[in-house]
């Protein structure tokens, strides 16, 4: 899985990124695309934890985790952070390739961006876990993840600047404006110095968006998790 993702990532940079940047009349599109691609890859790695939930339920590991002397809050927090960290471990080497390609202009900005990417990964993991336990069906979850991937990633600024999204359709622009992938991609580009097409002038705005997204799925998600799990409905 990791190897497959790495091959896909490198191919996207080496082929799609290079070729598309010659077609697109956006300044420095290649670096812009590589930054967005890193966030997209992080998203798809972090979302994967939801599938683990079904596997755990199938093998009864869920029962074990639920019987441990820890609170549900600690359990969700632990799983989300674990899922986010795992995503970072998977994507870490690919991020390094990205950074080699696009460079780092300001180390302080980059560290702040990296911190926000951690929160983004934890939030995506939390979202994935919450949706998995609420939906309770691996097939339906699979479909929803496909739909979310299509909408959240495509209607973000991961692959194209916000001004172009707005031009295509104001509703698309509105969605992209309230999208955690947009916030993460913006912060990553800001952190690495690709500032020509940032969606927000003030980086604190996307940072706030990511913090809110993380907080929502950490703490509101716990309530849903509690209600969905302890009733035994997942059985």
């Amino acid at each position, binding site marked *: 899985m990791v190897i497959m993702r790495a091959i896909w990532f490198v191919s996207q940079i080496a082929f799609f990124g290079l070729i598309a940047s010659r077609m697109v009349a956006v300044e420095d599109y290649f670096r812009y695309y590589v930054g967005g691609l890193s966030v997209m890859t992080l998203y798809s790695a972090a979302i994967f934890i939801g599938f*683990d939930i079904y596997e755990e339920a199938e*093998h*009864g*590991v869920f*029962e*074990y985790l*639920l*019987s*441990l*002397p*820890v*609170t*549900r809050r600690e359990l969700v927090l632990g799983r989300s952070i674990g899922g986010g960290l795992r995503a970072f471990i998977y994507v870490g080497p690919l991020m390094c390739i990205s950074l080699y390609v696009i460079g780092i202009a300001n180390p302080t900005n980059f560290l702040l961006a990296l911190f926000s990417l951690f929160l983004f990964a934890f939030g995506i993991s939390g979202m994935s876990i919450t949706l998995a336990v609420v939906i309770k069906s691996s097939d339906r979850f699979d479909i929803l993840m496909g739909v979310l991937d299509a909408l959240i990633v495509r209607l973000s600024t991961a692959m194209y600047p916000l001004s172009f999204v707005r031009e295509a359709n104001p509703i698309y622009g509105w969605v992209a404006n309230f999208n955690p992938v947009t916030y993460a991609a913006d912060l990553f580009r800001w952190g690495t110095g690709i500032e020509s097409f940032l969606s927000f002038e003030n980086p604190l705005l996307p940072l706030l968006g990511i913090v809110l997204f993380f907080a929502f799925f950490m703490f509101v998600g716990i309530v849903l998790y509690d209600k969905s799990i*302890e*009733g*035994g409905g997942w*059985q």
Partner: protein
Amino acid sequence: MAPIIRMVNLTKKFGDFTAVDHLNLEVEEGEILGLLGPNGAGKTTTILMLATVIRPTEGTAYVGGYDVRKNPDRVRELLGVAFQEPKMLWVSTPWDVVNWHAKVCGLPTQERKRRVREVLEALDMWDYRHRSVHALSGGMRKRVEIAKVLIQRPKIAIVDEPTAQIDVVGKHKIWRMLRELCDEGTTIILATNELYEADVLSDRVGIMHRGKLLVCDTPQKLKDSIVGGDIVEIQFEAEPSPKIVEELGQFKEVVKIIKTMASTLRLYLNRVEEVVPKIMSTLMREGAAVSSIRMSEPSLDDVFAHYTGLTLEEAQKGGGG
């Protein structure tokens, strides 16, 4: 003293299926309570409710004074569970599984390392500690599962079929370890469908069938509750006189006497251990020449059959989930 676990009309329904049906049961601190029943009797569902893994549909249970519905976090602090199917997590070796469990249960590093070693050695799993759990046999995986409870030493341990798939020597070792755990102050709930296990390990046995608790008492009292359940077979050297048969029939413990052969009497009676000396003195007084005497008392299988009308094997075949 208040019971450490009190189940009050504890009920769990999955759709139209009632897995546990208005269970009322108390468990005293420091005892081993065996829950005996075939697959589908509701033992595991009861355990999952006590462990706060699933919420009761109706009724509740108080564990250490805490309501499983209202204070599940406090309940879990008191419990350790060894599941029926070993739960191996995503980690890959017995050492990882047990060490991770001990870590989550809050054992300090040094104590954790020492106890992981102690428990794995005691369960004959130390040599296999770095082997992938996926390469272990069913019995070995089961040992790793039971190791979690042994290392945790919780206030209340719940063990679901702890010796399933384990060889005879291993079974005895685990029974001894569970008994030691109990002696150290842990209350144990043992869910099993092995009659002998329930008999040798439990202070009291609750028999469950189709989600209901049929009876709960000490194994001996359960056996004694079967009227005429004990059997004494006396083989005489010659046909016994009618007087002997009449005198034996006068003991209040004797329920029925059958002459199975010309020189053999089979007595169905209660409390065999008390009545045999009286039988012996009668036979000696009458000068009866006896070739042999065989005694047998009812097993828990007989008790189960007495209360359900089915043998455990028959109930297992017809049992639900």
